[in-house]
């Protein structure tokens, strides 16, 4: 099965509303990173997390290693937040980041 499972797979929001994306891990994740894929296809790093929370503007992310999940909260969604969000986890100080399959977010005016 998927080692990193993202939900939902797709999401449509009205501008100005809030939402939460989630990743569940079936590996012993030690660090988590969240990325936003731009229209051209490249990945922009949003957060790097050890267990705990981080906040940056309208984005807030949390990582709970004991319960094996991470969340990304988007507050006051804007049109430019549209894109595909990926989470990725590293396990047991290994070299490999395992990615989820992404959440496709569309923010409508």
């Amino acid at each position, binding site marked *: 099965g998927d080692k*990193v499972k993202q939900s939902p797979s797709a999401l449509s929001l009205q501008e100005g509303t809030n939402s939460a994306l989630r990743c569940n891990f079936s590996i012993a994740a030690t660090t988590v990173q969240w990325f936003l894929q731009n229209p*051209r296809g490249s*990945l922009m790093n949003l957060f*790097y997390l050890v267990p705990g929370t981080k906040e940056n503007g309208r984005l807030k992310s949390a990582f709970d290693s004991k319960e094996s999940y991470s969340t990304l909260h988007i507050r006051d969604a804007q049109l430019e937040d549209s894109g595909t969000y*990926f989470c990725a986890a590293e396990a047991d*100080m290994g*070299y490999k980041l395992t990615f989820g399959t992404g959440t496709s977010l569309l923010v409508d005016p």
Partner: protein
Amino acid sequence: DTTVKQNPRYKLARVGKPVNLICSQTMNHDTMYWYQKKPNQAPKLLLFYYDKILNREADTFEKFQSSRPNNSFCSLYIGSAGLEYSAMYLCASSNRDWGSAETLYFGSGTRLTVL
């Protein structure tokens, strides 16, 4: 400067022909990675260099090669392209602090189309 640069942005290749993609970073990161990204799929790690040591994933071992002539540059080489190689190829870099990867920085990617 948190820039990872990739060339070319678009690449057209014929089936059976070689392909060479280039990546550079100026952050003095010790680790450079190559990922393959296909639509609606998770990025897939192909290989990475930690310093001068190349590590290739088991399931892509024979399909991709790489070289890292110095800390800043890393290439991805396909000896004989097949249709299934059509994808976005993303280069990334990071530092490995105490064995754990730090923030991963991606380049803008090379979109390879094999005909």
